[in-house]
């Protein structure tokens, strides 16, 4: 249906092309997953399909894009709108109108679809995506999963033949992500729609993919069946990692297949649970209540953070995780309850004293950065924290060595930028560190690095709290887990116990081997010990 032929894309200030001679043919009714490490050009490839590259990104594009044999490479995105639908990384940023129903109709209005057809299609789409009860809602009041489904619906109403999605599940909690993916599979099966999506969290998407397009990093592209590509891919979900380590063939892609292979692993001795180490308590919060107007965001929450411990804070979108984190830091006003860090209440301290007790990395970490180079940012952080010159740079070199101080912070990769923000926050040497959703946009390698950094900080005597949706990240780093729902703690305890008890928060290894297994490296270690 759509064919990319010998595509080359070079950005203006880059030495090497991002895409170097790529060919890709998309057939009707298939779901293709675009995968690869951060910054290899996944979004660029999607942009070539939609026409946004090079019109919105700059750079030069050569080669040809064919739709049913006719070249559309010179056709702007708006003239491709009836064939190709696109949902960007942040669906809320692309909303034009203010209610769900109007948003669904917007694309059709642009194409001049007849009013009665529009009416019918809006109703069909509302049902297809299961969002009929949201029809009159204000778009800004929707949760992340709902926004994603509305955004998909809004491009579906024009009946495109190809749907292009950039990281559709990265901001979603596990349940909402499953909903969105189930919807997409249904569209592929029932309507024969072709779907191309880029995603970092392979563990969520791989079972649904018909083919994987792996960007190799040197401008090349490998396209094949998932099992074949994943056998050698540098980015793989835990399930494939386990399969490779255990030598299973063919590689299992879903939990169901892996369970069949895993029968012989059941005999392995279960990993030993390290007893809870009794680090000193650095932060105590009791009976926290936070309200936004009439809405109770956090209700009666007790939290204890110990030195040397990493605690994960989980819960669906909008369950009060961010509110809790900002309240613990002291910037967010609480209605009642107490917070004590080193005997002081952070809410009563001035912002500069607060920083010395509690460090926080917010969801959009880039909000902290405002200077032109990494070196300037570090120097400003040192001056602002009364730390000796070079403190921030030394921290940065420990977290992510070898960043050129002359780089602009926006040119860094997601992982490097996060490390820079972390270094700036740590330069006031707080002992309690709060991280809000740090894994967004990170690939597996960057997440492993982040896990190592967090573990390192905990071993250094920090108490760390991480709010995240990423169950695999939690499995790899957290000692304890607190699960929030509607602002209340629904379960809290050791990671193994909490995660094993919940089907939606269980990592893949737990799903395959059952509790108490959490991580691939545990299984590998046990297999080696048994050999």
């Amino acid at each position, binding site marked *: 249906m759509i064919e990319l032929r010998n595509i080359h894309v070079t950005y203006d200030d880059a030495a090497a092309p991002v895409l170097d001679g790529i060919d890709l043919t998309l057939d009707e009714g298939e779901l293709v997953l675009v995968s690869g490490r951060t910054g290899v050009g996944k979004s660029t490839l999607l942009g070539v399909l*939609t*026409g*946004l590259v090079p*019109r*919105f990104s700059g750079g030069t594009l050569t080669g040809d894009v064919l739709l049913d044999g006719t070249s559309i490479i010179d056709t*702007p*995105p*708006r*003239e491709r*709108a009836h064939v*190709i*639908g*696109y949902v*960007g990384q942040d669906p809320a*940023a*692309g*909303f*034009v*109108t*203010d209610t769900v*129903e*109007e948003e669904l*109709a*917007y*694309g*059709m*209005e*642009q*194409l*001049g*679809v007849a*009013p009665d057809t*529009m*009416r019918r299609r809006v109703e069909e789409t509302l049902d297809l995506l299961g969002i009929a009860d949201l029809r009159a*809602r*204000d778009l*800004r009041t929707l949760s992340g999963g709902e926004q994603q489904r509305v955004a998909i619906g*809004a*491009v579906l109403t*024009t009946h495109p033949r190809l749907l292009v999605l950039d990281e559709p599940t990265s901001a979603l909690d596990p349940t909402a992500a499953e909903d969105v993916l189930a919807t997409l599979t249904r569209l592929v099966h029932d309507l024969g729609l072709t779907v191309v999506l880029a995603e970092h969290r392979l563990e969520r998407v791989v079972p649904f993919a018909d083919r994987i397009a792996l960007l190799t990093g040197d401008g090349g592209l490998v396209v094949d069946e998932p099992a074949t590509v994943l056998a050698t891919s540098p980015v793989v979900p835990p399930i494939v990692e386990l399969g490779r380590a255990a030598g299973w063939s063919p590689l299992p892609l879903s939990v169901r297949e892996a369970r069949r292979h895993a029968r012989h692993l059941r005999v392995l001795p279960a990993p030993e649970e390290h007893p809870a180490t009794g680090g000193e308590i650095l932060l105590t919060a009791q009976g926290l209540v936070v309200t936004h107007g009439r809405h109770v965001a956090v209700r009666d929450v007790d939290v204890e953070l110990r030195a040397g411990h990493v605690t994960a804070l989980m819960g669906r979108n909008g369950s009060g995780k961010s509110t809790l984190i900002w309240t613990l830091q002291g*910037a967010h006003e609480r209605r009642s309850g107490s917070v004590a860090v080193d005997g002081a209440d952070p809410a009563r301290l001035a912002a500069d004293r*607060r*920083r010395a007790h509690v*460090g926080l990395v*917010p969801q*959009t970490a*880039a*909000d*902290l950065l*405002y200077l032109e180079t990494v070196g300037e940012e570090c120097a*400003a*952080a*040192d*001056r*602002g*924290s*009364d730390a000796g010159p070079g403190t921030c740079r030394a921290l940065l070199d420990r977290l992510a060595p070898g960043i050129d101080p002359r780089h602009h912070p926006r040119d860094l990769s997601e992982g490097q930028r996060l490390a820079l923000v972390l270094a*700036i*926050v740590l330069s*006031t040497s707080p002992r309690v560190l709060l991280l809000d959703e740090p894994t967004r946009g990170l690939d597996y390698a960057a997440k492993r690095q982040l896990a190592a950094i967090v573990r390192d900080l905990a071993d250094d005597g920090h108490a760390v709290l991480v709010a995240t949706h990423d169950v695999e990240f939690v499995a790899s780093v957290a000692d304890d887990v607190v699960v929030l729902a509607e602002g209340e703690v629904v379960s809290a305890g050791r990671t193994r116990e909490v995660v094993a008890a919940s089907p939606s928060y269980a990592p893949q290894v737990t799903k395959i081997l059952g509790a108490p297994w959490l991580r691939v490296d545990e299984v590998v270690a046990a297999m080696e010990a048994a050999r």
Partner: protein
Amino acid sequence: MSARLARDLHPVAWWVWAIGLAAAATLTTNPLLLLLLVAVAAVVVQARRSDQPWARSFRLYLWLGLAIVLIRVVFRILFGGVDGGHVLLDLPSVPLPDWVAGVRLLGPLTLEGLLAGLYDGMRLATIVICIGAANSLANPKRLLKSVPPALYEVGTALVVAVTVFPQLADSARRVRAAQALRGGVDGRVGRLRRFLVPVLEDALERSLALAAGMDTRGYGRAGDATRAERRLNGALLLGALCGIGVGTYAVLDTTAPRWLATPMLLAGVAVAAVGLVSSGRRVRRSRYRPDPWRIEESLVALSGTAVGVIVWWIAGHDLAVAHPGVESVPYLDVAALGAVLVGLVPAVAAPPPRLAVAPALAVGA
């Protein structure tokens, strides 16, 4: 009586009604009449507003009106103005240098001066409150969508611009909180930079994402107008612009030849109308569930217009009612009372609004 179907009234109807009331307010300084106009607006808003966010803004306009009255009265006390009359409080006059001749600071405070300030403030406040009533009864965005098809693109741009402000406020709040998490350069310029750079970066990124989103969804498709048609439309709109420009100038400048004034202005408007219709016909775009214009809309629009017209007639024929002056006690006659009460018609005639969480049948209406 059977229940009436709830539906949203056409926004233009609400605006015509509100402008009628506001026009009536500009034509009178009778405080009773002005209070009555505010009361009418308030009753209709109470009766027919929905539960959407914009509907809650009416209270803000009432406060704004009160503030306007207060400021106007305070100015009267500060700058005096009216000489003679009943002195309430003999404040000393502050001598000012010659070059501000005509302005007096403080000075004796007279009942007449105070009343004149009060009436004047009330008039302005009433106008603002009437516009506020329209804003809380009709979704401002739907009003923008009712523009003729040829202006659709401008309308969308305006809608987007309106949406950007709450987003900008969100991102400002976020950045302010985030910057408090780190040490950095202080001082006025430093702090401003710390705040502005991330907010502007964020705004720019959002705009790009929105532009990309709109483009991929077909905003600004060329349609099927031929080159000649596009040229004709361009010529028509340019001609209209020239006509309206010259006409307006001639109307305002009394030394210009008369044939350049009203005739030119009318011709310009006519050409503009032709241009809008002809380019609108070429636009291949449709509208999802356009607001219908039914008998209720006509009733609402007519009631507002009637208020304006009748008060205009009173202002011409019964000066004592329209502008009672500050010496005598203001009063109303039956005509004035009736005129303003006509504005209450929408409270009954307009259909009940659709509520976000209510059945479509409003029981008891």
